[in-house]
């Protein structure tokens, strides 16, 4: 198998499975947002101070920063080797884009306290320099999406600095922590050297400070709330603004109303931070009713947070602090707001708007209430328009040509049926389809994929044969649904997966077991022991049959190994392996030949909610409570990529059919699409009003369907980065989504005990993908859920946990019967 590493040196891996550091070093630009805390980590650690000092010294010398990275990274690695993994997630990827003088001040303050005079001095000088530069810099750059801006800057810096640029990352310490650590200082270095990026530079440092939980720095960050206003005035400020917004013109009102929630939260937090408990309480009581209902979960967290002491450990609060709430407002509305605030001398609110909000201003008509409602709801506001501009290769990879055996066997089959003629045109069409290269497809070797084995080819042939027998689905021809009920599961079923050929079903249970059933008459057998194997005649034709131990044949195999509920399960495409992820923080790889555990992948220190194999095998992705998704390869015990940026748990992970992208759904109510090649976040989809629990790519790779606890299914156009549909109907969490093999039908299964079938063709039929919509991201969703709903099927009392389309388009659904 070809690893990423072997083929593309610049990509990532030093494939050295023996040595301790199997090192995913990246180009500096490849870890955007990972810029966790180089500076923080080092400064926390005694020796790290030197790192910072050294780096600043480098800056002093006039050369832009990249050279700095190694020591800082090394220092970071020293502290962060185990803990870094946990710390990194909190370092929001978006963080880079947000800038904050406060943070810089906090860092300075800290340096002073730690008696690092020299570094402080240097940093101060840098900062001033950077302030001047910022003044001169083009204001436009402020809006730039963090990732792009940084990498662009980096390349510029790298060019200026000569060969030093890419160097640092690869040389440094062990573990995944090295990657973010090295990127962080590099970014900040770049920032200091350059005008517009000044704010960008500060962000990673701040994020880092927040991320690691050793406390003094948190209070430094929180001190941003220190600016005192009269606590009694807060209510007045807020109601003043409320009055203003409610009296503004209709067209502006909807847009400006978006301000309510972030302002409310920040004002409340300020009150709490400054220990005006009673004012905070009454402020909350008075205005929490005004907030949109979909913020209820966050408000609930806020309501319990009434003391300054609570703020330090509260993740929701930290999310609010470290990432800016993004609002999309038309220029007119923004001007109106600005004028109002300036007139009123309402500095309190203006400060919050300046410091904690990111207002994405667009030209043109203000959006309507419906348009806004469709897109908001995520924990940190909408996605910036720029965040969804990167090109995504959503096309499918060219299928390798496997011809010869197919022809023979199929034609035989056809001859038996006595219809040899019909075969020809069909095969041609299939052949031509696979020959034509999809213009949107990524280059075949964009990421290295494993070679096809003989058994894979056989499987492909089987697949193609089945394809010819596939039922053509449509509104008039609905699929049959076969429901696999897990009985006596005692509420313990937590995950299900079905192999692509529908021969095996795996269930993950709360009692830490993974159970694999064979649903075909072929029983599960394990391979004989080594001594028995040595007796086998290796030349015989049926050697594959002979190695199996007939005595072990059974319909069910139980895999023991986890020490907590198994929340995710995924079969490898070749059915030789099974992955399971669990509350115990590990992902385990099981062999379905021996039914034993092969590897335990440790990296997530917290529960791992989901895992999935790549459609081509070898790679897999996992996501968990630590807010990151990780990309792994089966033969590396450390992750190849860490996708950090979500502000809450990563609930579900799915590979794009071409294996070049990974989608993650999170409890922060966003869906993100990540590029496997460089770890960048290329799409952020906002619009769900509850934690996302299911994802499904359409078979052609163009669309993504997502389901959340709010019972809605949203459809997204990946290429344009737009929401294209909303399917309402479920009354509870949508646990499972699946497109039919040809993409005509979308099946959704939910905790409300129903399976629903939707007309996917119609849903994607007349998309508004004109340039205007694409450019502005304004969407108008048709209210046609009822038309698209083709069928609703109730189970007796069984939440639908998993859905699967067989190769012939029969739906398999699975769930555990839960007696009421």
């Amino acid at each position, binding site marked *: 198998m070809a690893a990423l590493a072997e083929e593309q040196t610049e990509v990532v891996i030093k494939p050295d499975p023996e040595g301790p550091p199997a090192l995913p070093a990246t180009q500096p630009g490849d870890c955007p947002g990972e810029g966790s805390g180089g500076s923080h980590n080092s400064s926390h650690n005694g020796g790290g101070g030197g790192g910072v000092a050294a780096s600043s010294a480098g800056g002093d010398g006039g050369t832009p920063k990249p050279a700095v990275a190694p020591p800082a990274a090394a220092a970071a690695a020293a502290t962060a080797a*185990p*803990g870094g993994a*946990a*710390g990194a997630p909190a370092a929001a990827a978006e963080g880079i884009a947000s800038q904050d003088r406060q943070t810089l001040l906090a860092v300075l303050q800290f340096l002073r306290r730690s008696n690092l005079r020299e570094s402080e001095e240097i940093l101060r000088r840098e900062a001033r320099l950077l302030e001047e530069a910022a003044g001169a810099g083009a204001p436009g750059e402020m809006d730039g999406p963090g990732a792009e801006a940084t990498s662009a800057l980096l390349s510029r810096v790298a060019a200026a600095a000569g060969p030093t640029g890419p160097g640092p990352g690869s040389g440094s310490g062990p573990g995944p922590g090295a990657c973010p650590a090295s990127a962080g200082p590099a970014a900040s270095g770049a920032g200091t050297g350059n005008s517009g990026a000044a704010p960008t530079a500060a962000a990673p440092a701040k994020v880092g400070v927040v991320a690691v*939980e*050793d406390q*003094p720095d948190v*209070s430094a960050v929180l001190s941003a709330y220190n600016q005192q206003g009269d606590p009694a005035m807060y209510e007045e400020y807020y109601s003043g603004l409320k009055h203003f917004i409610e009296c503004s013109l209709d067209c502006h009102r909807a847009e400006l109303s978006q301000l309510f929630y972030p302002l409310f939260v920040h004002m409340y937090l300020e009150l709490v931070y400054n220990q005006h408990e009673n004012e905070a309480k009454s402020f909350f009581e008075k205005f*929490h*009713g005004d*907030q*949109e*209902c979909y913020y209820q979960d966050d*408000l*609930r967290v806020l*309501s*319990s947070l*009434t*003391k300054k*002491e*609570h703020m*330090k*450990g*509260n993740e929701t609060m930290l999310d609010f602090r470290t990432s800016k709430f993004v609002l999309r407002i038309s220029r007119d509305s923004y001007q109106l707001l600005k004028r109002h605030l300036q007139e009123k001398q309402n500095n309190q609110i203006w400060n919050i708007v300046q410091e904690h909000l990111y207002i994405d201003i667009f030209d043109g008509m203000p959006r309507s209430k419906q348009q806004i*409602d469709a897109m908001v709801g995520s924990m940190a506001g909408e996605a910036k328009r720029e965040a969804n501009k990167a090109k995504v290769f959503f096309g499918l990879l060219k299928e390798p040509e496997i011809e010869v055996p197919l022809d023979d066997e199929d034609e035989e089959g056809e001859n038996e049926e006595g219809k040899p003629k019909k075969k020809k045109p069909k095969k041609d069409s299939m052949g031509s389809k696979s020959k034509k290269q999809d213009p949107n497809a990524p280059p075949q070797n964009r990421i290295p994929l494993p070679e096809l084995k003989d058994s894979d080819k056989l499987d492909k042939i089987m697949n193609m044969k089945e394809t010819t027998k596939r039922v053509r689905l449509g509104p008039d*021809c*609905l*699929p*049959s*649904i*076969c*429901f*696999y*009920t*897990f*009985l*006596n599961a005692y*509420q313990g*079923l*937590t995950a299900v997966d079905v192999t692509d050929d529908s021969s095996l079903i795996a269930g993950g249970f*709360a009692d830490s077991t993974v159970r694999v*059933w064979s649903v075909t008459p072929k029983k599960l057998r394990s391979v004989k022991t080594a001594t028995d194997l040595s007796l086998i005649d290796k030349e015989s034709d049926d050697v594959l049959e002979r190695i199996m131990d007939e005595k072990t044949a059974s319909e069910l195999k139980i895999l023991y190994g986890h020490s*907590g*509920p198994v*929340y995710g399960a995924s079969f490898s495409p070749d059915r030789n392996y099974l992955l399971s992820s669990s509350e115990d923080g590990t992902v385990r790889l099981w062999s379905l030949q021996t039914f034993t555990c092969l590897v335990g992948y440790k990296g997530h220190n917290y*529960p791992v*909610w989901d895992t999935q194999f790549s459609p081509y095998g070898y790679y897999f992705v996992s996501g968990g409570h630590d807010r990151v998704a990780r990309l792994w390869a089966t033969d590396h015990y450390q992750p190849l990529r860490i996708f950090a940026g979500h502000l809450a*748990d990563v609930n579900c992970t799915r590979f794009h059919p071409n294996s070049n992208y990974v989608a993650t759904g999170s*409890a922060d109510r966003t869906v993100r699409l990540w590029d496997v090649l460089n770890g960048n976040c290329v799409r952020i989809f906002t619009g769900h009003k509850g934690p996302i629990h299911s994802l499904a790519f359409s078979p052609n790779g163009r669309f993504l369907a997502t389901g959340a*606890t709010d019972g809605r299914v949203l459809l997204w156009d990946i290429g344009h980065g737009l929401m294209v549909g909303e399917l309402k109907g479920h*009354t509870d*969490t949508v646990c499972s989504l699946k497109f039919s093999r040809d993409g005509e039908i979308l099946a959704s299964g939910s*905790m409300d005990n129903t399976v629903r079938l939707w007309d996917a063709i119609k849903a994607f039929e007349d998309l508004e993908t004109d340039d205007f919509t694409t450019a502005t991201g304004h969407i108008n969703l048709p209210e046609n859920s009822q038309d698209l709903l083709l*069928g609703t*099927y109730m*189970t*007796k009392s069984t*939440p639908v*946990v998993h859905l699967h389309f067989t190769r012939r388009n029969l739906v398999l659904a699975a769930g*555990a019967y839960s007696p009421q």
Partner: protein
Amino acid sequence: MAEEKKLKLSNTVLPSESMKVVAESMGIAQMPEETCQLLTDEVSYRIKEIAQDALKFMHMGKRQKLTTSDIDYALKLKNVEPLYGFHAQEFIPFRFASGGGRELYFYEEKEVDLSDIINTPLPRVPLDVCLKAHWLSIEGFQPAIPENPPPAPKEQQKAEATEPLKSAKPGQEEDGPLKGKGQGAVSADGKGKEKKAPPLLEGVPLRLKPRSIHELSVEQQLYYKEITEACVGSCEAKRAEALQSIATDPGLYQMLPRFSTFISEGVRVNVVQNNLALLIYLMRMVKALMDNPTLYLEKYVHELIPAVMTCIVSRQLCLRPDVDNHWALRDFAARLVAQICKHFSTTTNNIQSRITKTFTKSWVDEKTPWTTRYGSIAGLAELGHDVIKTLILPRLQQEGERIRSVLDGPVLSNIDRIGADHVQSLLLKHCAPVLAKLRPPPDNQDAFRTDFGSLGPLLCSHVVKARAQAALQAQQVNRTTLTITQPRPTLTLSQAPQSGPRTTGLLKVPGSIALPVQTLVSARAAAPPQPSPPPTKFIVMSSSSGASSSQQVLSLSTAAPGSGSTTTSPVTTTVPSVQPIVKQVDIALPLWVSDPDDISITVA
């Protein structure tokens, strides 16, 4: 949007007195009020935090119900040792009690005798997980098999019946309770009428209910044939099976009109032919249909009632009235009618009063034969004590005379004699318990004779018997209710005045156990004059980054007595996260929660 849906956010905190109680139980007397207040804030916050994390595990575990293990995992997430010993699959083992205006949840810890446990046989091993496949849908249609829910839930059948103008879709009919009983059905009906009225008035084009064609699939036709044949066939085993199927199968509603017609026609024919056996079988079918929880029978009651009534009051039900036991059929049918009344009678359809009227009319009639007389009385008697009291008792004297004239007089016909005999025992059977309740105890033969004529003496002895039986039953009832109420709050309610002291006693138990600690603490408290310093054992150099938020627990509790200095300076302090939270939570859980909704809201 925001204004429409006001958020229900409760800001409940634990009452500070519970902190005091906990402190006392730990052996710390005299906690300052301020400290209590700070502690409750902190503890409430932590509990909420943990509850919110626990919810996450519930969602990911694909469950609708929060379990104790979810809370354990949430604690683990915070690097806190879980609470061991709280394992319950289905319910949280907290018991609820109220009294003295307070509500209390507590965990009942019974003393368990080890020998009991050793001697009790092991419970059955729970069944292992297994996989079962069935068709949820076949090419878009859901087959009506037991694995699937009934194709049309009862509410929908009802909605179709009562509100034909409302297009009924599953999930739309929330109004009206599930079972169309008494008041509920009335209000639902009333609502239906109200809803129907406006469109008519406003001149909206009248929507007629589309004529539905009741077509049965081939399988259904086969099923119908099999079932009806088995029900009236000769094989008793098959009949039992068929009746069982009628009583439980969820997919019968489409066949309901057929069954209903089958029964009413069957009765019509077999009454004429005096085929007692078949009539009994048909009545058993009615009973089975009524027992089926998925069927909405209201629409067919008009067909069923006459059939059942016929079986009660018909002059002749069998070929040889002197030998055959048609009385049993009448009794059975009378019970059925009573059941129908109970289920379907409303103030709009007046089923009960109409039935009562019919019975009374035929009973009052002088020429009514004894069979019909028996049926009418049985029908009335089954309707309940009130009916007996108002309609039967006043006529006892009259009826007694008639019976006496037949029994004592010249033998006119054997059949009449038997009939009168049955009527007499029927009256005695039903009236005695009622009289036993109505009349004060001293049972005097003469008083009875004056009141009830010739039936008096017999009645009197029956009443005496009934009284004895009632007393016996009452004892039994008392005993059973006692055992039932014991684990339930009703019993504790009866002890309401005691509940206050009792609960504190309950909480004090650990305190008395921890007596040495108390003395230790008080001794130490006496030594240093200033508030006891934050226990140094909690302050530990940071060693792991996993400590996370658990640190705050301490920072607050230590900061409480002193100034805010601890919060600003703890550069190097981190708490060994395990210790404090465990304690806090440990004591926090079995406490008063002033508003039980608090937890449940966050859970929901």
